[in-house]
């Protein structure tokens, strides 16, 4: 058995109710050591091409990272993967919290869920054992009630509950999954896949300890202690602890990069109503953290004067329901967040799809007769809030928006597709690529559709003396580069940073742990993996693990017919912003296309198709994946 791992995968067939345990060998685990890599392997092997995402044949994989549950700050994350009902491609979404570590302590690295339950069910896992139980009495109920009832039924209030909500039951294409009510596998509609399988929840309780699995427990414990001390004093993690992600609102607005009114503008005149100071004064109640994490970036809030059960809005949520919908009221944003979290759907896609509809409404592409009488103009907070429930219930106009902006735009027609700010069907997060070009390249190339966590953001790598660039030098970055430029050095940045971020998703580390975004140096991560596993790894092997995971995702998409034609950006991003510091400046289209060609070359992918070559797949020990793709 490999150190640092339980080496066990739980297989659950919901149709037959058969539950089995499979053992992983060390040689296998070193190639696919958790998270994105483990999930990608099982997806490619077990999901036949062109499987309907919401059919019983889709396979849902939940996989812990290599370090998840270890006593290292930010090592809390697990991935949920399946073919995405939003994009039709490789689907993936990570979350932190406490559920992943609990799964590890219950004896499993991953769960592979196939088939469809005849009636609503939930999975109960405790200390190496698992059983399916009825969830008929839980279907249609709020996440708070479901969590309370499951804990009461199992007689243990420490049970960790991962679950979908009414939006997942209703197959909203961007329904999400929560754990502990306040941590979310937000993107790609993984909640809809779970809903299509009649699986409401996965409850977990474990009593083992990560350290009992580690190769060198004292070394891992000492590293964890040192990193906790570092996390509370390093400037980048210190800032996250002070304000959490809502602290991003004002700096982004100041730089003209706060997405406003469906990405038309970069400066929001109502920013004072949604920035951290408004958040702190009007809704903030407490700080909170994920498992064993000293960064403590999570916020608790009060909504309509009452403590919310679902945690506070993150930056993405403040951006999308605030400036992107033209709403200048943090209390309305907090209510939107609470509603999305009660129905359990992705705040980014829900908010961005509403912003899209607002622009269609203002252009007269849709009217009151289409929107069930709702005056869906930018800035109308009440209209925004009423749309959330209609989407989750698939009621009236909400039924169209529950399909996501790309499908809704096709139905509305006319100019509507131009207003759908999405890539591969997934709505853009709240980071303005016209101010950071590699973020834009990442939106285009990402296998899951627009994703802001694919590479570290350009602005943090523009000053050679900055703490963030110095952190990136530990990854091998050579020279600082301007944010709004595509050149060969930026391609090199992208290649290294994407491999690194992909490794974060393999290892279970949060984006807010390692350099260049935060406090944990590259050498610390290598040390952690060595202490956990006993493997004589170096940084390059970790980067290769990340690259291998990305290539499996790419092969999955190749089988579904994706190619270079899908690595695109919304047309609006090639046009200038209407206001702010970078007003009038769009991404230069030709430079973007050249950058895309260069990054394909760096990755060993075919320039024309954008797909991995057999040669590169073989170099990554993925011959079997080349065979699946038929790559020549």
């Amino acid at each position: 058995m490999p150190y640092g791992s339980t080496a066990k995968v739980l297989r659950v067939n919901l149709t037959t109710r058969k539950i089995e345990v499979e053992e992983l060998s060390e040689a296998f685990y070193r190639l696919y050591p958790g998270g994105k890599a483990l999930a990608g392997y099982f997806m490619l092997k077990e999901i036949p091409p062109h499987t309907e995402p919401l059919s019983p044949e889709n396979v849902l994989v939940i996989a812990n990272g290599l370090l998840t549950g270890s006593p290292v700050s930010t090592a809390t994350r697990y991935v949920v993967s399946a073919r995405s009902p939003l994009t039709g491609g490789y689907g993936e979404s990570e979350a932190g919290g406490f559920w992943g570590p609990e799964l590890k302590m219950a004896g499993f690295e991953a769960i592979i869920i196939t088939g469809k339950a005849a009636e609503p069910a939930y999975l109960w896992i405790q200390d190496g054992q698992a059983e399916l139980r009825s969830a008929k009495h839980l279907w249609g109920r709020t996440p708070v009630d479901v969590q309370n009832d499951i804990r009461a039924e199992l007689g243990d209030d420490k049970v960790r509950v991962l679950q979908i909500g009414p939006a997942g039951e209703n197959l909203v294409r961007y329904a999400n999954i929560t754990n502990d009510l306040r941590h979310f596998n937000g993107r790609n509609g993984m909640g809809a896949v779970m809903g299509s399988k009649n699986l409401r929840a996965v409850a977990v309780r474990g009593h083992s300890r990560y350290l009992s699995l580690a190769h060198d427990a004292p070394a891992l414990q000492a590293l964890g202690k040192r990193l906790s001390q570092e996390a509370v004093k390093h400037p980048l993690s210190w800032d996250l602890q002070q304000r959490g992600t809502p602290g991003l609102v004002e700096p982004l607005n100041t730089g003209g990069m706060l997405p406003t009114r469906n990405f038309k503008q970069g400066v929001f005149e109502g920013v004072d109503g949604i920035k951290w100071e408004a958040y702190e004064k009007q809704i903030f109640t407490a700080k909170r953290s994920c498992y064993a994490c000293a960064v403590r970036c999570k916020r608790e809030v009060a909504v309509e004067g009452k403590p919310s059960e679902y945690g506070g809005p993150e930056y993405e949520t403040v951006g999308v329901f605030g400036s992107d919908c033209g709403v200048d009221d943090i209390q309305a944003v907090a209510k939107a967040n609470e509603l999305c979290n009660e129905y359990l759907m992705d705040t980014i896609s829900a908010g961005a799809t509403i912003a899209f509809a607002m622009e269609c409404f203002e252009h007269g592409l849709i009217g009151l007769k289409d929107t069930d009488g709702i005056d869906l103009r930018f800035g109308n907070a009440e209209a925004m809030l009423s749309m959330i429930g209609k989407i989750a219930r698939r009621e009236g106009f909400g039924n169209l928006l529950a399909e996501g902006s790309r499908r809704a735009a096709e139905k509305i027609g006319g100019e509507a597709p131009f207003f759908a700010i999405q890539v591969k069907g997934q709505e853009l997060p709240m980071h303005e690529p016209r101010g950071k070009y590699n973020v834009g390249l990442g939106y285009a190339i990402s296998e899951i559709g627009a994703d802001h966590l694919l590479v570290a953001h350009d602005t943090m790598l523009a000053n050679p003396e900055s703490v963030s660039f110095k952190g990136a030098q530990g990854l091998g970055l050579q020279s600082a580069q301007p944010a709004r430029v595509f050149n060969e050095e930026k391609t090199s940045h992208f290649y290294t940073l994407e491999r690194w971020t992909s490794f974060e998703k393999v290892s279970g580390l949060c984006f807010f742990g390692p350099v260049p975004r935060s406090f944990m140096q590259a050498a610390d991560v290598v040390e952690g993996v060595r202490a956990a596993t006993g493997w004589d790894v170096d940084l390059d092997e970790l980067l290769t693990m990340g690259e291998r995971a990305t290539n499996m995702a790419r092969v999955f998409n190749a089988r579904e017919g994706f190619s270079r034609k899908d690595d695109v950006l919304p047309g609006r991003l090639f046009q200038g912003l209407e206001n702010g510091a970078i007003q009038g400046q769009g991404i230069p289209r030709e430079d973007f296309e050249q950058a895309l060609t260069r990054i394909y070359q760096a990755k060993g992918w075919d320039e024309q198709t954008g797909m991995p070559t057999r040669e590169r797949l073989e170099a990554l020990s993925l011959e079997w994946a080349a065979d699946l793709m038929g790559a020549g």
Partner: protein
Amino acid sequence: MKLFLGGQFSLYIPGHPPSVDVALNESARLSEVLLGLGIPVADIHLVVVNGQLVEMEEAVVSDQDEVKIFPPVGGG
């Protein structure tokens, strides 16, 4: 000069206040004022003086000015 400390910059001032008053007898280069306070200028991405975005290298400030500094941010 009233200096608003965005991002992590409160960390460098005792007590970590959100803003600090800096007495200036005469106008001075902002970068020198900040270095005097122990704030790492290389980590500053945006400088706002009296509501206007300015370049750090060009920023000259005097006692009545209101200044805001922000780091680059990403993720979230």
